[in-house]
């Protein structure tokens, strides 16, 4: 039974993910671990407007028919919780981070915030990017040593002791990816910036 403040947290983080543009209308999924169960968003739900019916409790270890309604990525979430001490997971499709994951094998932030939080974000490749056991194995293995990982061309998986922490990592990664993309792509937005060196 989900306590009111736990529901509010899931609802608010889901909303923030959508408003921040880190997911499209029906994409992404989030979960928290409560004992031997996980509470995960429903497949097909809109994270921007989570209602109580949009949350599904699934057993962590045992076969559980509630997976019928759970997010497609429940296999990844379960693997992460089984193989790590994570208590919350945020899976999002942050645009710049996802774009860079198609160009790089790891993301190394250059901005201040990112350099404090991440140092390095690994990028993993899988053939079947949605809900596959291969993805579950790779992601959960990576998250044993990193707080957030990118699945190439798909999106981010962030772990936390709290949902807010996993959301923060997702949000900060996207900010870092924005800086990285513009720097690496050489897309200088300032007019006459080429002239700065002649000053």
């Amino acid at each position, binding site marked *: 039974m989900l306590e009111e*403040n736990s529901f509010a947290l899931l609802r608010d983080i889901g909303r923030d993910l959508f408003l921040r543009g880190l997911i499209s209308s029906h994409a992404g999924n989030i979960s928290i671990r409560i004992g031997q169960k996980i509470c995960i968003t429903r497949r097909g739900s809109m994270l921007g407007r989570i209602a109580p019916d949009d949350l599904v409790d699934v057993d962590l270890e045992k076969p559980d028919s509630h997976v019928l309604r759970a997010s497609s990525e429940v296999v990844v979430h379960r693997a992460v919780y089984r193989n790590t001490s994570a*208590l919350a997971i945020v899976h999002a499709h942050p645009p710049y981070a996802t774009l860079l994951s198609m160009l790089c094998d790891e993301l190394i932030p250059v901005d201040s915030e990112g350099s404090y939080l991440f140092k390095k974000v690994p990028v993993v490749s899988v053939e079947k990017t949605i809900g596959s056991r291969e993805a579950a194995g790779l992601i959960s293995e990576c998250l044993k*040593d990193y707080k957030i990982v990118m699945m190439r061309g798909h999106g981010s998986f962030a772990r936390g002791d709290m949902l807010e922490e996993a959301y923060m990592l997702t949000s900060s990664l996207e900010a870092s990816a924005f800086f990285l993309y513009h720097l690496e792509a050489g897309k200088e937005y300032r007019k006459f910036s080429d002239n700065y060196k002649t000053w």
Partner: protein
Amino acid sequence: MNVVTIDLGRSATRLHPLDEKIAREYIGGRGVTSRMLFDMAEAGRDALDGASPILFGTGPLTGTPFPMGGRFTATAKSPLTNTIFSSSCGGRLGVALRKSGIDVLVVTGAADRASYLSIEDGSAQILDASPLWGRDKAFVKAFLRGKHGSDASILLIGKAGETGVLYANIENDGRYLGRGGLGAILGSKRLKAIVVRGRGKVRPADEEQFSFLVYECKKWLAANPVTSQGLPELGTAALFNLMRETGLLTMKNFSEKAPLEAAAISGEMLTARLLKKRRACPFCPVACGRVTRYGDGPEYETLWSLGANLALFDLEKVAELAGACNELGLDTISTGVVVGLACEAAESGTVPIPVAYGDAGAIGLLIRQIAERTGPGALLSLGARRMAEHYRIPDAAQEVKGLELPAYDPRGAYGNALGYATSNRGGCHLPGYFIGAEVLGIPKLLDRFALQGKAGLLANYQNAFAFMDTLILCRFAAFAVPMDYYARIANASLGTRITWEEALTIGERLWNLERLFNVREGVEQDRLPERLATFPLDRMLHEYYAVRGWDETGIPTQEKRELLHLL
């Protein structure tokens, strides 16, 4: 890793290597010393029996320039709680031991006369301490410095350790192994002091990576206002006003909230009126230690235990009482809580002890009597639980597993309360330090009164901090340095390649080992004092045991023990 075992009874010294499996599975510090104690200690043996060992351990950071990594650990069976008890201290003993080529010092047996140990560059001697027994600390330190050098690290007990007060502490270079009565263990061995000098070098395995991590950790410490401003400017007393304003600071044996008047003994007032200088542990940039004309401290806990708790709001008098405890070698938290219990009992007419809340003179006299174990001090020297049992006032004793509770009211932060109840060393906030999450917002702010999910989070923190204690990285580093750094710090120091999750498993192994020690000793189940268990603790414990993989009574299952190599 090198172990020196000294048997005081046989006047024998032995140097031997540490079992590699123990080093691999427990790393150092609290881990290694706890494992060794578990293997050495005879179940049921009195903690003050001369044969009961006490171990002083270093970690992979000790002796390196890693910020906040200069501490050492002492581990023994506590005479106060009968639990396994690890205490950490910021004196220079650990650095000196490591530079002397010693990673763990084991002391067992009891000398037949007052003695002290001298260790210099790996060579140990048992020397006569007859001229020192019963003398004040200034005399003892001057004597030992004169004989062994002004740069020697000196660890010693006070009067309370000599007489066997069950919460006697140990001092090392102005810092303390405060809780659990480890001073009484040295006293039972007639060991007055340990003097160590070491001149070797300590080098990490991967110097380049180590330097990188030193740099990054210093960045984090500088970025966080707790470690860059609060603690340096105000010491741990920085917490005082915040806890009072949050409603977590209590008065009169946890029966009332501390009033506004308590601000007179806050960290701000301490800094403005009494501070002479700051004190730092080796290689620590934070320097949270305080020194006033009354001596070391007072720390936040002491300002509460001897101040607000006893309804004493005169800063000079509180500092003077703190100085008296330091000189006598008494744990200030236990002393304050025991005296608070005495005040409550005296006030209600239950117990005829001449002491009252706010009466600094009577409190000071009682503290001296506790150290000397005379008059009413004799019973009080046994701790709050035994005193309350004697007078049949169990509700008045605010303790868990025999350890008197510290300054954070459990009724105001339920996760921290669960931490008190489940702590392996008794009522203590440090093993899980949930105040970080519930009050300071580190890493994120939690609702203090929420219940769901806190059990899992607490277990994670207990595991992470247990691993932190195997490195012997100061707990205050947790305010700033992210937890996923700990494994990387270990790897740079030791040349290992453990992941963050593997580090947490090492911490979990240590936590479960400590639990098994306590089960073997028949330590009571997790609980809170009745006065303070005002929320659904049983529900939280049920969730906690499930998360831990323990049975419903809080004992690690066979499966859990197999998983952690604890069979």
